[in-house]
Structure formats: structure tokens, C-alpha cells
């Protein structure tokens, strides 16, 4: 029987090759790929997320754990049948126009993926129109936007406005975050959710998608 606990532990430590190997062994033993995903990889990412929120682990550890998760996914994905891939929800994510800070946004993306959400990553320096276009093409549940500068976070208001103009405002939840962003700012621009950290962002996004 596959040792989910062990895969989880190795993934948390970022042992990519070993995670990959154990995932392959689990499949050979006949374990359902979806079970390995949920009970080992996603479970591990959840633990990392909580530890990150509590400052017990830091950015590099999250990234190396994510790398290990991707090594595992390489094995699991091809083995999954369509039924396994249930779409929980879709999130369009990016750093706002004028802002090139990538790391925080990538952490949030990792946590979203850790919750099993489908993530469309638009990268950094993303215009309001681009967010809205992607959200409406992909029929996304959530637009998540990040800003690290007080001078660029004003772009978030433009995103809310662009979603209204495109007529998708009632279909999409707009989530904002980043160092200078606050709940107050979120309220003032008419966005829906403010998340203070990556783990909270993923919990709130999951809530939106499963509601």
C-alpha cells in the first residue's frame, strides 16, 4: 500500500526525484492517481501553506515543495481518466499593470493549485483589459490580482471597472492582495475579497468556487 504520509513528507522537504519515484510506484501498485494527488500531494501543499502562513517555513521552501509537487504531477496527470479531473473552479491570476513583482503572485498560484483549482497565470504587468478578457474567455470564477507597490495598486480599481464594463462583474469574484493592500482598500474600490496571505487566499478562493 502506498505510503501517502511518506510522499507528503518528502514533498514538504522538496525531494522532487523521490516524490516522482514514489508516485510512480504507487501507480504501479494500482493506487488510483486521484487518491495519490489528494491524499499525498495536495495534502502536503496544504500543510506547507499553513506553515508558511505561520512563518514556520519561508518562500524558498514553498517553491521547492511546489517543484516537488510538479514532479509528482508529471507522473499522475497522464494516468488520470477524465472522471478524475473534476473542475472545482477556475482562477485568473496576475500582477497588475506597471508592477513586475512576481514572487508573491507565484506563491498564491501554488496555493491555489494546492487546493485543486485550475489556474490561468497571466504573469506580471497585466492590464485590466487582459484580466477581464481572460476571465470571460475562460469563464473563470475568480480574478486574483496582486500589487506590491502603492503606486500600482490603484490599477485594481481599473480591473473592477473593466469587469463591470464587460458585463461579467456579477459572474466573477475579484480578489486582491499584496503588501500595501488592505481590507479597507479592497472595500473602497469595490473588490470582493482581500486576502492577507497566500494560504488564506486559497481558502477563500476555494470557498467561492464550491459555494
Amino acid at each position, binding site marked *: 500500500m502506498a505510503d501517502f504520509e511518506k510522499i507528503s513528507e518528502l514533498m514538504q522537504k522538496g525531494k522532487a526525484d523521490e516524490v516522482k519515484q514514489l508516485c510512480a510506484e504507487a501507480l504501479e501498485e494500482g493506487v488510483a492517481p486521484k487518491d495519490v494527488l489528494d491524499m499525498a500531494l495536495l495534502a502536503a501543499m496544504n500543510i506547507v501553506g499553513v506553515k508558511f502562513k505561520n512563518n514556520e*517555513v*519561508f518562500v524558498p521552501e514553498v517553491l521547492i515543495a511546489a517543484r516537488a509537487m510538479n514532479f509528482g504531477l508529471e507522473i499522475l496527470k497522464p494516468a488520470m481518466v477524465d472522471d478524475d479531473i473534476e473542475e472545482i473552479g477556475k482562477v485568473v491570476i496576475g500582477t497588475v499593470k506597471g508592477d513586475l513583482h512576481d514572487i508573491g503572485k507565484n506563491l498564491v498560484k501554488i496555493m491555489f493549485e494546492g487546493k485543486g483549482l485550475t489556474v490561468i497565470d497571466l504573469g506580471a504587468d497585466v492590464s485590466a483589459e487582459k484580466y477581464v478578457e481572460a476571465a470571460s474567455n475562460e469563464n473563470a470564477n475568480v480574478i486574483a490580482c496582486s500589487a506590491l507597490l*502603492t503606486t500600482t495598486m490603484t490599477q485594481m480599481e481599473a480591473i473592477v471597472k473593466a469587469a463591470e464594463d464587460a458585463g461579467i462583474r456579477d459572474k466573477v469574484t475579484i480578489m486582491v492582495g499584496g503588501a500595501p493592500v488592505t481590507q479597507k482598500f479592497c472595500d473602497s474600490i469595490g473588490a470582493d475579497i482581500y486576502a492577507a496571505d497566500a494560504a488564506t487566499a486559497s481558502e477563500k478562493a476555494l470557498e467561492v468556487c464550491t459555494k
Partner: protein
Amino acid sequence: MNIKINIDGDSIRTEIGQGDSLLEAINNAGIEGFDAPCGGKGTCGKCRITIENAETLPPLDGAEKKSLSEDEIKGGVRLACRVFPESEMEITVSASGRKAAIQSEFEGAVSSAVLDDKSILCKLFVEVPTPSIDDQRSDLQRLIDSIAPKPIRLPMEQIRALPGILRENDSKITVVSFFNEWIAVESGDTYEKSYAVAVDIGTTTVVGYLVEISGNKRGRIIEHVSGLNSQKGYGADVVSRIEYCMRNEGGLEELKGRITSQINGIIAKLAEKAGIDLKLINLITIAGNTTMTHIFSGFNPEGIAAAPFIPVVNDLTASKAADFGFELHDSCFCVVLPGIASYVGSDITSGIIATGMHESEELCLLIDVGTNGEIVLGNKYGLTACSTAAGPALEGANISCGMGGVPGAISSLMAAEVHGNEVFSYSVIEDVEPVGICGSGIVDAVAIFVKAGLIDNTGRILTEEELAEAGVHKSWIDCVVREDGKSGIKIADEIMLSQKDIREIQMAKGAIAAGVNTLLAETGKTSDDVKKLYIAGGFGAAMNKTSAAAVGLFPPELEEVVEIAGNTAGKGAVLSALSENVLTDMRKVARNVKYIELSTSVLFQNEYMMSMYFQS
């Protein structure tokens, strides 16, 4: 409405309008050294004031509830930026920042090459022939003929002043040239007496140096005067200042007014201390980061704030001092020195010139540690520069018990032999009871705790069980505290380094180390090739280089070649006031430095992640 502000036994009254915060009142009143690092967003919790007297107390804001303890709230402590008075109010503020030690010293004397050269501001004493019925040449023509064949181009107001100046002193006058053009006249012989003020506008501090630029004491630095940047109440970092300019009508003019009047004050104080007439100051040179020089020049800094990061100007700008808003005479001129990019300004070009790395045969590295860590690598064969967002942690901001390098700050820690309970000792600025810890102390603390094994290489504070298992001495283990699931390491009563603080330091040091590694990789060099590491700026002067190497602020093998260079921006501004060649070199350097944008560099992102670790 009227707000009475008590400070250090004085009190100042100021008027504010409906909807203005107490922070605006404090800024209006021109109080220097009041800390408001986040610029009034309610996020930093540092702009604490005490309300002494108020008819109506405005309600507590969410940010105040978060930042202030119950005892503080009971005692009337509030955040200045969150209180919007409805009626008259009396408050007490403390401006401990006013006592900050400012790095104004720099290394190395002025070289003979600089002294032998001439300044861009030159003077020539002329005895213009007195007119007569036989010599009816005009005033201007007699002057032109006296200094021929040199061309002269006097502006209108100088021509207007000419007859008075000629008659005042028996036609003995001094002509002033600026950038090789004779463009001003002064009464009498002032040739031997000419001074420049070289200014370094830092985001946090401003320093002015009074330098003799003519006569036999040319090159002598007579006095310097420094102070905290008077824009400090508008936010600690450049982005907050730019934001203020963007969000408020007249904001740029307001901030420009602040810095100009501060420099006016510094110049007046320099002249007073040296006992010279303000009229003898003919030149002002200005070095600073690009945002500071933009605001000073009245150039819109908005393009600096967001990608693609475009400044209005990088090259030097020069004009009459009055055009920059100085209250000085008509033959005083001002030069804002050339910078490289939006985040590598003339403070760094000045640093390159001051250290002489642009003329060095050996590979040199220059690091200026501030909120932005600017890094330059190179020698006479070429220079490469970048800027990393180190954040303010190394200056004590964003650290739970952090503070600037002011009295009461723990400024250094030393590990002791383990005996009894003492595992380390510390020293406090001015030897008083410690109230916090400043950047140099924080770096020492992290270095010591990593070495003692309390912090692992990922930056995590180990649990007591893990420490006991690893055989760490009990006295060390006793330093580790845990409250509400949050861990920290105790340094003194009420002073500790929290897990979050360590994360802040990891990001700061990681950013600088990653910047260094990126420059090395981009230029195909290794740290072994670097023969000199200049560390500039206030934090650089205060820090212990062994601790800095141990935490990994720079590659540890470079500790041997570290040279603490002091205020290189100030020194570069002084040199450029003295020598036209220096200024020409500086322009050449500014144009030719290869600037590397790190925010889009994949190499940097990877280095950044790896550089957050500690070596243990």
C-alpha cells in the same frame, strides 16, 4: 481648526482643515524627525502620538486597534495618520529620529589631480577702464574688450546690474564663468573667495558640505551640516513620496518646497558656522537618488514608480540657483549631477567617482545599502549596475522591536563564552536602557543566533526539543521564547527578534546578495575576481562586516576586501564641485554604465530564492 503640538518641551500651533489628519498637522508644523514610514496609510503603526486634550475624541480606527495595546489606548496614544480631528486638540509627539547619527564622513582626501583641475565655476578679476569723454564705449563693451578674446554672454538681469557694479567699486569687478561661459558679474575682487556647497539628498537624511573652490585653500571642506530629510513625514521610501506627488494636487510642489527650504537652511547654517558671506557661495552640486533629484528639480517623478520605470532626465541639469528655488544671489549656480536609471541615481554615480572604481585596474564592487540596495560591479574596463528592493528592514523598519540608529537602540551584539546565563552581551547607543534594536544590531543578532544553532539554514527558529536534541547549551535554549504559537529569540527585556523579523532580514539580505550574484553572473565573473568591496551609506558604516558576511549580505569570502567607504555620494558631490574633469568623467560613467533591470531577470529570481538561506 487649531492643533497644539507639544514636542521636547516646546509647543507649536498649527491650523488644519476638516478631513485632515493629525499627521498632516505634524507635517504642516514642519516637525523634523517624526516617524511615519508608511506615509500615512495606517499600516506601519509607528506614527504614535498622545492626545492630551480634546473636546471630542474621534473613534478608534481598525489600524489603531491592531497597532496599539490596550494600555496605550487608555493612555491616549493614537496613530497620527488615523485621527481626523473634528475640533481643537492638544497632542504630544516625540521625534526621537531627530537625534539620529547621520553618516557624513567619507574616506580619502581630495587628490591633487582634482585640485590641479579647475571648477566648472571659475572667476576672473578684471579692472575695466573707466569711461571718459574720449572713451565712450558702453559699459558692456568695455567689459567685453577687457576680457577678450574670451566670449562673454551676460543674461539681461546681469547687464541691468552692470553699471551699478562698475561704479560701486572703481570699475574693479569679478566675472564669473559657469560651464565655460562668462555669465555673471560681481562687485570688487572676489576671485580668491569662492565657495561651493555639495549636497547629498538621501531619502532619509540630507547632508551639505561647504567647500572652498578657489584661492590657495582650494579643496578644503570647511564645514558640514546634516539633518533628516524634511519629507520624512510623507513616507520612509521613495515610492511613498512619489505616491504623495501623484495623489495630491500640488503635492510635487509641496515636497519640492520642503527639500529646497531645507537645503536653503543648510546653506545658511554652513555660511554662519564658517563665518562667510552667503554672496561668496557660487556653486551648489546635488547628488541623490533619482526620485529625490526629480522632486528637488520639480520634475514629475511618476514615471519612476511603475514599469517601465522612465525618469524625466538622467543627465545633469544646470541652471541659476534661483531657478531651483534657492534664495541666493544671481551669480550662484546649481548642478544636479547625472544618474544612471530610475533606481540608480547620481548618488551612485558620485559613489563610483568617489571610490575611483571607474579608474581601477582591479575588479571592484560597490554596495550602497538602504531601502533600495544599489550595486555596481566593474573597473576601468566597464561597469554594470543594478538596484534591488531590499526593503527597510536593515534600517530597523518593519522589525517588531526595530528602530533607527538613535539613542536607546541596541547597535551591536557580541557572543560571549557560555558561562552562567550569559551567552551574549550588547551595547546601546549612548549607554542608556535599551528600547529597541537598530539595523547593525539586528544583523549581529541574526549572525550570532545562526551560529549558535538557534536558527537553521532555512531561517526557522528551532523548537526547544529540537535544540535540546542537537545538544545546544541550555543558556541558549532559554533565549527562545514562544507566545501564542509564535516564536522569537529574546535579546533584552521586552526586546526580541521574532520569527517574522528573521524573515524580513532574509528577504533584505537575500535581495542584496542576489543582486551581487546576478551582476557577477551577467559579467562572467566570480566573487574570487573581486578585489575590493566598497560599502557605502549609513548602515554600511555602522554594521559589523563579519556579521554581514556571516548572514550572507554579500559573498562571505569578500569580507577580507571590504572597505567601509562612508558617504560616497557626498564625496562625489564635493569632487564634482571642484573639478570639471570629474564632472566630465561622471557624465561619461553615467552614460556608459550597463544597467541591469532585475525585476524581469529570471537569474535574479532564482538567486533571490537561494540567497534567502543562511549558511550554517
